[in-house]
Each structure stands twice: as structure tokens, then as C-alpha cells.
């Protein structure tokens, strides 16, 4: 045992003691070839995965370097199996190379090793894409570029894609030093690093990937930084119209693009421009269940030089398929919580691109780039008269009753009193509950049925300080930027959704001159407690701890 900050486990996870004097230097090495799994208060967990090693290999990081660094930082001798894994997995990169072929209809897939070739040919789903060429290579149809990469990754052989991404139609743009609003604007160091991690030298193997940054840390700015470096026709896909408008306003505010260069492609308005912002919803809209998706063509035929997938963890299934065909385009996925309840995180990595940048939440909090937040779980009893109905209800009914517990209103009232000078969001799952709260306190409310214009108006009033409290449904879970909000009161949620909890906390993480408070009101002695515990897992892994309060009945 020696005085080093890292413990390497036999399942290839690495535990970093963040209080160690060398932890920063160690972390700087780890991020080159590991993935951050969780970053609670004391011990951060990284893991060596095939994807992270191939990603490292594609960036020129050699396996010798990786094993040397691991051994250097490790407190204990590193297990042989870990070192073997690194060498074995890293050595697979470069065994299958995708390059241009003489025939413009095809790409050339060169395979180093007869065994790999035989293995590929034996797999039906791969073999059907292969056109025999010579002993060492196959040709593949250009539209199969994404699919072959996906299937080969599943087989354990990453494709070394040496075809440079296509430069789109040029769109000159620059970031402003002063925003249109007159504020000084500087891209933060980690935002620059994130963009750089994605774009690299713009050569083969770079220009696509996923960037994971905490809510409120300025992912939009990272997107704009990438746009300004590529200077090309760009499509931004985001979760809802409010977010579309936010992107539009941010681009206008912080770049020299003109209003007419930025288009909106939504259910309401369809104006493709040099920079277009659309929603996932419009792309996946189809008039009937079996019919085609009429607006997906925007993605495929728009001749985009860059596609930004905002909140990439929300990427819907039809877009997955199309994304597989868009492998020649520069693309970036942005998210704070790469957790998909359908478990398709790997597909995001292989289609949009691997995770290129990630930073622990608490690190940005310490640096002041996101607000310090205190989380509370407030437990409140069910009213006596609801105890029996709750006891006899089924699981779903129990959850609904617990979520809509009327005594939560008293708690909300009290919490609002506790924060007279704060901007407060009251967030919930059930519209009737939210409407009751809004009615009882005379507060404005935004739900899915609120017209977009009304939503925009309410968001504007909130931002401008005209209103201090806003009641919102899950439509405000994602991508809504309300910089001054510093208190969120969650009265109900979607069962045990970890990403929802994190995204809701994210609404109050914009840095400001005060701390933020996140309250989750949960019914005591109900199954809502269990769901709440599950919801909190992701944030707990980012270093947030919930203080539990029992509300006096």
C-alpha cells in the first residue's frame, strides 16, 4: 500500500479519494480513458469500459500509457486481469477500418485478421451489409455506415472510422464578447474543454460525441462554441417549444447571427434556416400510427453540417434509426443525466458518439459555476381519513393518493413563507394537484395544455421578476432556463425517475448570489417514500444529500 489516491478494483472500477492531495492530477489522467460513474462527496467512481478505451485509442492514447498511469496512481498493486483487459480491449481498436473506396457508392471496410473477418461473416445481421471485395476487405453501402459501426461495437470490434466528416454549407458566425443584452460574455474554461474534447483536430475519429454537464452549467454555450468553431449549417433538436425559443434567444444574444438566419421548426412554425431549432416531437410526429414520419426528412435531407441533440437522453426511437444514417455529419449530444429508463445509453454512444466530456457536479459547484443547492425531503402524514383508502388501494392508487396528499398544501404554504425573497418553482406530476395549489395561492400555472404563447409570457414574467412563484407540470422538467429560480418545491413526480429528479433540481442550479433549495414533499408511511429514495439516487451519486424533515401534523 502506498500513499496514492486511486483504488483499482477487479471489476475495473476505480475509486478516487477526492480528499487526497493528488486527486486532481489523477482525475486529469483518468478522464482520458475512463468514464465517470458517480461522484458523491468522498469517493468518485470511474470505470474502464470498452467504449472508454476505444475512445481513448481513437484519440491516440496508447494502452501502455493507460496501464502505466493506472499503476502509477494505484494505492495497491493492480490486478493482472485489469491490465490484460486494457491491453486486450485497446488492441481491438484499429482492427476494423472504415475508409473511402474507389467506388463512390461504397465505403471500404478493411479487416486485419482472418478470424475477425470470419466472425463478421458468420453474423447474419452484419453479413447482410457486407459486399465482398478482396481477402482483407468488404465494401459497404454508404447508408450502412452507422449500422455497421453499431453492430461491430456489439461484436466487440470498434470501427476505426477514417472518413472525415462532411463539411456542411458554411455559415460564418462568431461568439460575441458582449451579449446583445450588454453583458460581458466569456466562454468558461470547462465549456471550451468540452467543445475541444468533441472536435479534437477535426480529423477522422473526432467531431461527434456526447457531452455530459450538470444542469445549469451552460450546455447551450458549449453548443454555440462548437457552432462557432465549425461555422456551418446547424440543426438543433430539443425537447419543447420553450426550449426552442430559449436556444433561439441565446444564439441571438451571444452570437453575431441575425434573427433571419435562425429558424424554428415546430408544430407551430416551419422555417428551416441556416441555424434551425426543432423539437423531437415534430420530428417524430406522424398523422397515423403506421404511416411515415413526414418531418424526419428535415434531419436527413437538410444538408446539415452540425446536428446538436439537446437533452440527448430523450432521443426517441425513430430518431435513433435516422441518426444511424447521419454518420457523416458533425454531431453532438448534450445532457446532464445520461440515464435512460429503457437502458439504451449504449446506443446513444454508438450513434451520436461516445461520451467525450464529463465533469462532477460538485466540482462545478465548488468553482461557483452552478449554485450551491440544499436538498430536503419533507415527510408529511396522510390525513387520517385517507389511511384506510390508502391501505386498501392497489400500488398505483396508493402512489397517486400519496402523491396528491392534500396535507402537502400546508407544507407548500409554509415553505413559500420560508423563502419570501426567492423565486420559487412548484413542480408536480398531477395536473389536478397543481391546479389546486395554483388556485389556493392564486399562482400562475404552466401545464401541457397551456398555450405556448402563454407559457412564454409566464416564463418571461418570472425571468423579469414580475412573478415570484410559478406552478409547473413536467413540461418544465427539461431545458427550461429560469436563471433566478432558487427554490424548487416538488409536490409529486413520475414514480422513481432519477433523471426527472435531477432535471428538476437543475432548474435552480444557475449560479446566483444565493444558495438554492430543493424540497421534495413525500407522504410518510407510503410507497412514495420508496419511489422518492429511488428518485434521489442519481443526485446522491453526484454528492447531494437529502436532509429528511418530518412535517408536524
Amino acid at each position: 500500500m502506498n500513499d496514492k489516491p486511486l483504488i483499482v478494483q477487479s471489476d475495473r472500477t476505480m475509486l478516487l479519494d477526492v480528499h487526497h492531495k493528488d486527486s486532481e492530477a489523477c482525475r486529469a489522467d483518468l478522464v482520458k480513458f475512463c468514464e465517470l460513474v458517480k461522484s458523491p462527496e468522498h469517493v468518485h467512481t470511474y470505470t474502464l469500459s470498452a467504449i472508454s478505451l476505444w475512445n481513448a485509442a481513437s484519440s491516440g492514447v496508447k494502452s501502455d500509457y493507460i496501464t502505466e498511469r493506472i499503476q502509477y496512481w494505484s494505492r495497491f498493486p493492480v490486478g493482472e486481469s485489469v491490465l490484460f483487459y486494457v491491453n486486450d480491449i485497446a488492441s481491438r481498436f484499429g482492427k476494423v477500418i472504415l475508409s473511402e473506396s474507389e467506388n463512390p457508392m461504397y465505403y471500404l471496410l478493411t479487416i486485419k485478421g482472418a478470424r475477425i473477418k470470419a466472425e463478421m461473416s458468420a453474423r447474419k445481421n452484419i453479413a447482410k451489409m457486407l459486399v465482398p471485395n478482396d481477402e482483407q476487405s468488404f465494401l459497404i453501402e454508404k447508408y450502412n455506415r452507422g449500422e455497421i459501426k453499431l453492430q461491430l461495437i456489439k461484436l466487440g470490434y470498434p470501427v476505426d472510422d477514417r472518413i472525415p466528416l462532411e463539411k456542411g454549407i458554411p455559415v460564418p458566425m462568431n461568439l460575441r464578447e458582449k451579449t446583445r443584452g450588454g453583458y460581458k460574455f466569456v466562454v468558461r474554461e470547462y465549456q471550451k474543454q468540452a467543445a475541444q474534447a468533441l472536435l479534437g483536430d477535426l480529423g477522422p475519429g473526432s467531431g461527434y460525441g456526447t457531452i455530459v454537464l450538470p444542469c445549469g452549467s451552460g450546455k447551450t454555450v458549449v453548443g454555440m462554441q462548437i457552432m462557432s468553431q465549425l461555422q456551418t449549417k446547424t440543426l438543433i433538436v430539443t425537447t419543447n417549444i420553450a426550449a426552442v425559443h430559449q436556444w433561439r434567444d441565446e444564439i441571438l444574444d451571444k452570437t453575431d447571427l441575425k434573427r433571419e438566419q435562425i429558424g424554428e421548426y415546430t408544430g407551430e412554425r416551419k422555417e428551416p434556416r441556416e441555424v434551425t431549432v426543432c423539437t423531437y416531437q415534430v420530428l417524430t410526429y406522424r398523422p397515423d400510427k403506421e404511416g411515415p414520419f413526414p418531418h424526419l426528412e428535415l434531419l436527413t435531407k437538410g444538408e446539415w453540417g452540425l446536428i446538436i441533440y439537446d437533452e440527448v437522453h430523450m432521443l426517441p426511437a425513430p430518431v435513433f434509426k435516422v441518426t444511424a444514417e447521419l454518420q457523416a455529419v458533425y454531431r453532438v449530444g448534450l445532457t446532464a443525466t445520461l440515464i435512460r429508463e429503457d437502458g439504451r445509453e449504449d446506443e446513444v454512444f454508438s450513434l451520436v458518439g461516445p461520451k467525450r466530456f464529463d465533469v462532477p457536479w460538485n466540482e462545478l459547484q465548488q468553482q461557483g459555476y452552478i449554485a450551491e443547492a440544499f436538498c430536503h425531503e419533507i415527510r408529511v402524514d396522510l390525513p387520517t381519513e385517507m389511511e384506510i383508502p390508502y391501505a386498501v388501494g392497489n400500488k398505483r392508487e396508493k402512489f397517486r393518493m400519496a402523491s396528491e396528499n392534500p396535507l402537502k398544501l400546508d407544507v407548500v404554504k409554509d415553505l413559500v413563507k420560508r423563502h419570501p425573497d426567492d423565486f420559487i418553482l412548484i413542480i408536480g406530476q398531477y395536473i389536478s394537484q397543481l391546479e389546486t395549489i395554483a388556485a389556493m395561492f392564486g399562482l400562475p400555472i404552466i401545464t401541457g395544455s397551456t398555450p405556448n404563447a402563454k407559457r412564454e409570457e409566464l416564463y418571461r414574467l418570472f425571468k423579469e421578476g414580475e412573478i415570484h412563484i410559478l406552478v409547473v407540470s413536467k413540461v418544465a422538467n427539461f431545458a427550461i432556463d429560469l436563471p433566478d429560480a432558487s427554490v424548487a418545491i416538488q409536490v409529486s413526480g413520475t414514480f422513481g425517475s432519477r433523471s426527472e429528479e435531477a432535471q428538476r433540481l437543475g432548474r435552480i442550479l444557475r449560479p446566483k448570489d444565493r444558495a438554492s433549495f430543493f424540497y421534495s414533499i413525500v407522504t410518510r408511511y407510503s410507497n412514495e417514500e420508496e419511489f422518492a429514495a429511488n428518485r434521489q439516487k442519481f443526485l446522491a451519486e453526484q454528492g447531494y444529500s437529502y436532509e429528511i424533515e418530518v412535517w408536524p401534523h
Partner: protein
Amino acid sequence: MATLTESRKNAFKTLLNRYSEENYFYLARNYLGLITTPFHKPALTTKLCNFFSLPEIEEKVLSLIDEMDQIILSLVNIAGPITGEDIISLLKDRYSYGKLVRRVSNLQERMILLNDGGLLIFNPLFDEQIRDLCSLKPLFGEDPSQVQNGAYCSTEFLRAYLNIVDREQKLTYKEEFSTLFPSYSSEQLKLLFALLGEVLSEQCVIVGDKRVEVDFEKAHTLLALNDRQLLCMLVAEPFTKEKDRSKAVNFANNLIGYLQKIGSCDNLSLQLLLKLLSLKTGIEYEASLLERLSTLGVLSLNDIWQANHIEEESERSTLVIDSDNTVSYSGSCSGDDILYRISDLTVLDRQTSYQVTAQSFTRGLDGNLSWEKVQSYLEENSYPQMSESLLKMLGITHERYQQITIYDGIVLVTEDRVTRLLTQLESIQAHIVATVAPNTFLMKRSTEQAWRKILVQSGVLVPAKKAEAYLEVVEERENPNFELLVGESMVEAVTADIPGMKKMQPAPLDKSLRLAIEVSRFTKAEKADLEQRFKAKMILVKEQIVAQVVNGVVEAGGFDYQGKVGLCRNAVGKKNIALQLMLPEQELIVQALEVAYTADKEALLKAAVMPDMEVKIIPVSKIFLVRQLRYHLV
């Protein structure tokens, strides 16, 4: 060169004086030359003692030790006093019986091994020097290596196992457990779970049939052992009939000690070690032992057997309690550590992690841990500071836990909320026999599972166990061996203190001695006798080369029919003389019982074939070589 103490010299003399006259004078005449009568035996013994005490003699004796000598001596070194038959039996897979008999006898003739009441021991005059020459290498393979860092059944593993059993209330292994033990193979885990389930049930550490429970008092006793002691206990467990329990533990302790030293060996060598230590400790070797050693991870089979490094005691680090309620540490917990009783294992590895949840904490309460104990445990062991939110969460859970107390499965004492449920919930009314007092209900014992379920579904945290004060012991199972077995297992680690890798390079036979024999003016028989003793490394100095026949004829073959018959006749009835017979297709070592003649005057040797002593009648004419061996020098 070690200074010889008087006690050693006395020991030498005592042993020698116990030899039979024949053997005594055989040795005396060889080493001291002609012995003329009258003689004084104590003086002769002293002379022999002085002879072997000479540094140059000691050096010469030791320099002639070759690799096979070293193997036999190393075996004696490990086994301790051992019979010649046992040495031969242990090495019979490596060498022919005849060769072994010759070599064991020869070590006695060279006075490297002495006979002590039928058991062979090192000559006390060279004891230390011989031990220095002993080595594990020739015994256990030519290419031993370092122990590897493989997974074995440590106390931390046992703790993790008990945590899972407590949580699952079952002994069954599930494939999903493999992620909790990344350094163990799934196959090994499956076997380990089965083995521990069996052993711990047998020892009543785990009780119950369909739904099992952990007896934490016993578990703590077991967990107080260090890794080595736990393995000793588990290896020894099948042998633990009451009388040989400590022998079994001693065997296991020795075995682990030697394996740690050897590192790796082939199957034959491993079998030899097991048999050798069984013999040493008086344990009956069982073939199933190998499988147990492999399951426990003492050994792994990777082409050859590879011993896994058994950790020295490593104290547990402070607990790091993170915001996700993960509690992690490295090293080994003390026996009475309670973390595994209030949390769920998330990984057992270099750094071990458990996660505390409301459910896992409730399990701890069900297991009779008090909230105060849990609280003070977490506060005392946390680094850098105790997680206040965790404490709060546990405090609230405890409060909720206390809302209901079940006495003897029928009386419920509740708090107001639960009382409301009990009085108003229709489905539970059928299970209430009577309301004894406000907040106290008499419940049906026969439907206990049903009303428990209703209460749980209604959001009540129902204690799994009945309150202790009213516990009725329905059946008490005890295994009196448990405490004894654990007690016996608290042994100091045995370390194999013999050098690991020494290879012998014996000095060549002294040419000047051979020349002296050749040029002497002795008779042919005297010269032949000297030559035979010289080859047997019994002639060490020129003073031994004197005109005498010590052994007489020791070999006859070919057409020397009378010579062969003479040797056979000479050996009849002598326990210390064996005959090596070379027959057309086999070699036999026999003890001659009788020489008889057929009507045609053909000599027939009736002999007991060693080692089984099967009696055979062999026509001497069929033997093409007879050699006399001094078998027992006693």
C-alpha cells in the same frame, strides 16, 4: 560450523547404543576400522561420536548428499520422525521400490539418518546442517513460483455471504450475486455458497430450513478469526470428529503454511504434500480434500496447482460514508463489526462497499440490534464525518419501526396510526381476537402471515421478529462442536521455515580414496568390500581403508548359482536384511523366509515380497542377480 553441544553428542551416543550388536559393529567397523577384542563399547561409541564430530567429517558427509538424498531428508524434515516404510510409501510414485529401499538404508549407513525406536531422525550431530540442506524444490516440483493474488474464502467473504443470507433468508446462490464479488468466478461462488451453506448450517450458524436466519452471536465468534484461521477451520471441518479436531486444525494450518511457501506445484507433488502432512499430523487423508481446497480458494488449478496468497491480518480502514449512503472500507473488519447487519453488500473487492437503506437497517433491528448501538457505531467509525442525513433517515425508520411491537406472535401493541388501521381496516378484523386495551390487540396466531401482510401493505413497518421477552423456544438445536472447533482454529500461523529453492550439487567421490583402495595390498574380497562401501559413500577418510570384510559378499549373479543360494540362505530370518532380486521381467525386494530344495536339488527361495509381504516361492535359478541390502539399521 555449529558448535556441538554435549547434549547432542549424548543424544547421538544414546541412539547408537540402542542399535543391535550386528548393526552397531557393522557401523563401527566401517567408520573406525578394525576393532580388536577386547573392546570397551562405551569407548567405541565415544570414538564414533568423536569421529563424526570432526568438522572435516561433517563437511565430507554433507558434501556427498545428492538430490535424491535431499528429497528424502526434506521429507523427513517436514514429516518429523518417520518410518522408513512411510518414506518409501510416500515416494513410491517417483522412484522404484528397490531404489527407495536402497537409498533410505544408505542414508542410515552414512549415519545421516539414525533410527530412534523404528522412526528415522536426523543425526543429532548434524541436525541443523542437514535441515539447512533441506528444500521444498525437489519435493514439490522444479518450478515453484510465488503465490498468486487469487480469490479465497476470507472472513470478509464470509461476512458478505452472511449479509446476503440474512437479506435473502435463503441459502440458494443466484447468478446476480456474481457482480457483488468481481474477483470470484461464478463457478467458485456457486461452490462456495453451497459449501458455506452446508458447513454453517451444520454448525448452527445458520438456522432454519425454507427461511433461514443467521445466528449472529455465533457468526461474530466465527468472524473474529483471521483469514488463515477461518480457512483452517473450514479445511479441518470434515475431519472434526471429536477426538481429532485439533489434529485436523493442525493439519490444515500446516497445509496452508506449506502451500504459501511452495506457491505452485503439479498434481503429484500436491498429493505428496497432503499425504505427508496427513501422516505428520495423524489425519486420515481424504480425496475430497482437494476439491474443498479449490472451492475455498486456498488453491486454484491453472494447468498446475497455484496457491493463493492468504492475507496477513489487515485492520479495517475507517468507514467512508458517502452521500449515496454507500459505506466503504479496505481491510478486514473485527469480529463484532455490525456494518454487514445493517446494510446491503454492493461490492467485495480491494475496497469493499455496503449500502445502508431503510430496509437493510430494519433487518438489523429485526436481528436485535439497538438503534443506539447502530448510531454509536456509525458515529465512531466514520470518516471524515458522520453523514447527518443518513443518521436522520435511520432515526426516522427506527421511530416507525417502534410503532408496533409484536409479543409472541399474537399480542400487538401499537401507536395511534396503526391502531386506527387495526380498528377500521375491514380486511384485518377477522384476524383480531380481542382488543385487550387501547392500542393493544390480541391477534390470531394461526393467521399471523395474513395479518402481517395486510399491515405491510397498509404502510406499516412490521417487525420480523417477536419481542424477545416473550420468546418461546420451540426447538433448540445446538452443535457443541462449534465453540470447540472455533477455539481450536485460533492457531498461530504455521510457516514453512525450510529454504524454498535449494538445489544440491554433490561433491564427486574422492578419487584419492578409490586409488588408495586400488593400490592396497588387500585380498580381492577385502577390496571388493571396500569398493562397495566406497560407492555407498561410507568411506570418508583413508583411515577407514583397512584389511577387513565388513559386509561380506553382497551381490551374486549370472552363473554363480551357489553364490546366489548362499546370499539367500544368509538372509533367511534376518529382519534387517532384505534381498533385491532381479528376475527376467521384474525386480523384487524380499525378506528371505526359507531356502528349500526340490527333489532335483534345485534351490527354491520362499520369500515375503515387500512392502505387502506377499509370500512367493521363487526358484533361485530364475534369479539372475541377488543383492543383499541392509534394510533396518536398528
